[in-house]
C-alpha cells in the first residue's frame, strides 16, 4: 500500500486514471418548516426554482447540460418524471436529459455522486444534481381498500361485475392514507429508531442539545458573514431557513420534552430541539469537468473525489437504522488511503443530534471498530471544531432529498475559501442506508 505512505500529501483519487469531477457551485431555496411558508408549493415548483436560481447564478441559460439528476422522497404519482418536467420549466435547454433518483434522505448525494462518476468517466461534461421535498404538499393516497375497489371497477365489463366490485366498498375505505415517516418494515418512526441507537451509545441529552445549539449558532453566523449569498436564492418571500433560531439557548432547549423513544423512559433524550423538523425545500449543485469549467469561465470550488453507499440490517436489530455511514466511511477511507483525521471539514448530516453523536461514538469505540468494521484499531476522534462549521440540518431543516445538495454546495465553498484540504460528507437515510463522500479543495 504505497499510496498510504503519505496520505496527507497524496492526491485522494479513489479510482485513479479518471479525470476529476468538479463542484462548480450550488443553489438552494431557503428551507421552510412544514406547513409554513411553502405549504402550497409543489415539488416541481420548488425544484424548478432551485434550478433556475442555479442557471441564473452561472449563466447556464439555453445550455444543454449533460444530465440533471435529482429526486424527491415523497412524490405524487403525477410526478413520475419530476426532474425532467422541472427542467422543461427552467431556462435550461429543453434538450437537457433528466432523471429521477430516489434513495430516501441520501437521494441528493446519490444523484450528485452518480453525476460525478459520469463526468469522471468522460460520459458527460456537465451535470446538475440535487433534490426536493415537501411534507406540506405531500401526496395522499386513497386507502388500499378503495384502491382495490376502484381498480376492479375499472376492469369490470358487465353491470354485474361493476356491482360486485362496488359491493366490496366499505365506508372506512374513504379514510385516506397520508405518508408517514415510519419505516415500512418495522413500523417505527425514524426518531424512535434513532432513540434506541442514541440510548445504546449512551449519548446524553446535554450533548445533543449542545450540538443543536452549535448548529443554530453556526448557521446564523454563516448568514451574518454573507456565506450563503451565493448559495441560496429566495423563494416565496423567504430568504433564510425558517427553522433557524439564532437566539436559541441551552436553557430553552433543555425545557423541551422528549419527542422520540418515549418508551425508553429515563433514557429518552431526543426532543424537537435536537431533532430535525419536517421541512420543505430544494437544492441543486452544478458539476462539471475541468474543461467544461474553464471553457465557460466557471469557478472550480472542489473536486468530488469519491463516494460510497452503505446499508445496515436494522430490521433484525443488527444495527441502528441510521448507522450505515459508520460502515461506509471506513470503506471509503480505505479506498482512498486516508484516515478519519485527514479532513479539514466534516459534514455529518444532523438527522438527529443523536445520529451524529452515535456515529462519532462508534468511530471512537475500539470494540465497534473491531467487531463491526473489522478494523484493528478505532477510527478515532475528529476535531469537533471542524464539524458542521456552517450549521447543518438541525438548524437549516431537512427536506429529505434536498439535504445532499445543501451539504455538497456548502462544503465545496468552504473548501474553496480555505484553499486547501478535504471534506468528509456523511448522510444517513431511511431504510438503513447512507451515502458518504470526499471532496477536495481547489
Amino acid at each position: 500500500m504505497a499510496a498510504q505512505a503519505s496520505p496527507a500529501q497524496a492526491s485522494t483519487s479513489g479510482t485513479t486514471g479518471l479525470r476529476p469531477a468538479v463542484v462548480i457551485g450550488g443553489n438552494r431555496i431557503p428551507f421552510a418548516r412544514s406547513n409554513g411558508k411553502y405549504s402550497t408549493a409543489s415539488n416541481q415548483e420548488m425544484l424548478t426554482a432551485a434550478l433556475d436560481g442555479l442557471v441564473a447564478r452561472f449563466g447556464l441559460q439555453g445550455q444543454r447540460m449533460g444530465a440533471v439528476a435529482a429526486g424527491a422522497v415523497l412524490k405524487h404519482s403525477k410526478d413520475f418524471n419530476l426532474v425532467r418536467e422541472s427542467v422543461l420549466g427552467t431556462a435550461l435547454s429543453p434538450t437537457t436529459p433528466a432523471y429521477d433518483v430516489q434513495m430516501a434522505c441520501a437521494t441528493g448525494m446519490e444523484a450528485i455522486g452518480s453525476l460525478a462518476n459520469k463526468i469522471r468517466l468522460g460520459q458527460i461534461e456537465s451535470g446538475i444534481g440535487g433534490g426536493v421535498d415537501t411534507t406540506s404538499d405531500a401526496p395522499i393516497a386513497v386507502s388500499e381498500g378503495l384502491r382495490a375497489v376502484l381498480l376492479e371497477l375499472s376492469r369490470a365489463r358487465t353491470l354485474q361485475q361493476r356491482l360486485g366490485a362496488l359491493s366490496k366498498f366499505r365506508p372506512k375505505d374513504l379514510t385516506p392514507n397520508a405518508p408517514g415517516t415510519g419505516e415500512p418494515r418495522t413500523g417505527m418512526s425514524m426518531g424512535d429508531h434513532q432513540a434506541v441507537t442514541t440510548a445504546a451509545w449512551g449519548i446524553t441529552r446535554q450533548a445533543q442539545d449542545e450540538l443543536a445549539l452549535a448548529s443554530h449558532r453556526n448557521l446564523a453566523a454563516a448568514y451574518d458573514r454573507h456565506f450563503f449569498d451565493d448559495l441560496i436564492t429566495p423563494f416565496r418571500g423567504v430568504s433564510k431557513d425558517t427553522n433557524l433560531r439564532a437566539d436559541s439557548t441551552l436553557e430553552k432547549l433543555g425545557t423541551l420534552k422528549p419527542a422520540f423513544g418515549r418508551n425508553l423512559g429515563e433514557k429518552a433524550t431526543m426532543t424537537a430541539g435536537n431533532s430535525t423538523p419536517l421541512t420543505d425545500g430544494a437544492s441543486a449543485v452544478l458539476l462539471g469537468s475541468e474543461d467544461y469549467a474553464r471553457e465557460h469561465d466557471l469557478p472550480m470550488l472542489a473536486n468530488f473525489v469519491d463516494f460510497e453507499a452503505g446499508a445496515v440490517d436494522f430490521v433484525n436489530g443488527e444495527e441502528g437504522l441510521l448507522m450505515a455511514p459508520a460502515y461506509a466511511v471506513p470503506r471509503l477511507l480505505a479506498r482512498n488511503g486516508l484516515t478519519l483525521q485527514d479532513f479539514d471539514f466534516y459534514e455529518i448530516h444532523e438527522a438527529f443530534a443523536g445520529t451524529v453523536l452515535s456515529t462519532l461514538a462508534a468511530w471512537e469505540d475500539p470494540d465497534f471498530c473491531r467487531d463491526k468494521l473489522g478494523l484493528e484499531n478505532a477510527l478515532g476522534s475528529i476535531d469537533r471544531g471542524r464539524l458542521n462549521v456552517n450549521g447543518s440540518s438541525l438548524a437549516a431543516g431537512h427536506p429529505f432529498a434536498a439535504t445532499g445538495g445543501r451539504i455538497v454546495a456548502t462544503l465545496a465553498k468552504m473548501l474553496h475559501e480555505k484553499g486547501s484540504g478535504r471534506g468528509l460528507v456523511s448522510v444517513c437515510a431511511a431504510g438503513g442506508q447512507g451515502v458518504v463522500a470526499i471532496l477536495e479543495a481547489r
Partner: protein
Amino acid sequence: MSRRDVRLDAVPALPRLYAEALANQVRTKLTGSSGALVLPEVEHSVDGVRADVPRLEAYQQLVGDTVRPTLPSVFVHGTVFPVAMSVLAARDFPLPLLGMVHLSNQVEHLRPIGVDEALDVRAWADKLRDHHAGTAVDVVCEASVGGEVVWVGTSTYLAKGIWAGQRPERRRDRPEFVAPVQTGAWRLGAGAGREYAAVLGDYNPIHLGALPAKALGMKRQIAHGMFLAGKALAQTAPREGGYHWDIVFEAPVLLPATVSFGVATTDRLRSFEGWNATSGRRHFHGAVRPL
C-alpha cells in the same frame, strides 16, 4: 404405536369445525359425560393440498412478507391446520376445542416449499399432560411432498381448568420481563383479527370483534397468535434453506394495539420478542434457527 387414519376428502372449513365442536361441547355439557382424558389413536389426513395463490399473496401482503412463490411457514400452518382442527373437533377428542388457549408452536420448516407443490397432510394429537392451569396437548401437523416430509408443526394448546389427575403446583412466578432493544412497532387496528381471518379462514369468534370476544370471556377481541408469528417470521425467517422456529404466547394482544417488537441475533439464532410498552407485559417470544 400406529394410529387409525381418518382420511378426509379435502381440507375442512374451519367455521364448520367450530360449529361441530360447539355442538359436541353442548352435547357433552347436556349429557354430562366428560369421559376419561385419553387421546384417540387417530390421525386425520388429506392428500394433495395446494396453496391458493391469491390467498398466498393476500397473506404475504397482510403480514408484510415478500410476495414470492414459496410458502411462508405460518401460511403452511394456516393451510394445513384445519386438518389438525378436524382432530380436535372430532367427537372422540377429550377436550373442549372452543375456549382452548394457544400456548406455543414449534415448527420444522425443512426446506422451501413451492407454491405449486402438492402437500400430503397428516395431523394428530399428542402428549396430553397436566399444566398448572389445566391440561395441555400438542397438536402435530406434518406436510410432505411425494413422501418427503417438508414441514412439521407442533401447536400446544391448553384446556383451562380441566385436569386428568392432580392439579400441579403453580409454577413459580416468571422473572420480571425486561424489554429488549426495540426494532419495530406494529400498529394493529381493531379489525386485524377479521383481516387475518379473511385470509386464512380462522374465524374464531375471540378474534373477530368486541362482542363475540366478550361472549367468550375476553375483554376485547385479540390478535391471532399465528398472525403475530407470521409478522415476526416475515422479518426473521431465512429466505433460503430450512429452519426451525418456535414461538411462545404470553399476554394476549387486545386489539387495537401497538406491539413493540425486538429482534436480536446471536450467532445463527435469531430471537424475537413482542411486548406492550405501556403495560410492560410480554405478548410473545420466539426464535428462528436455520437448519
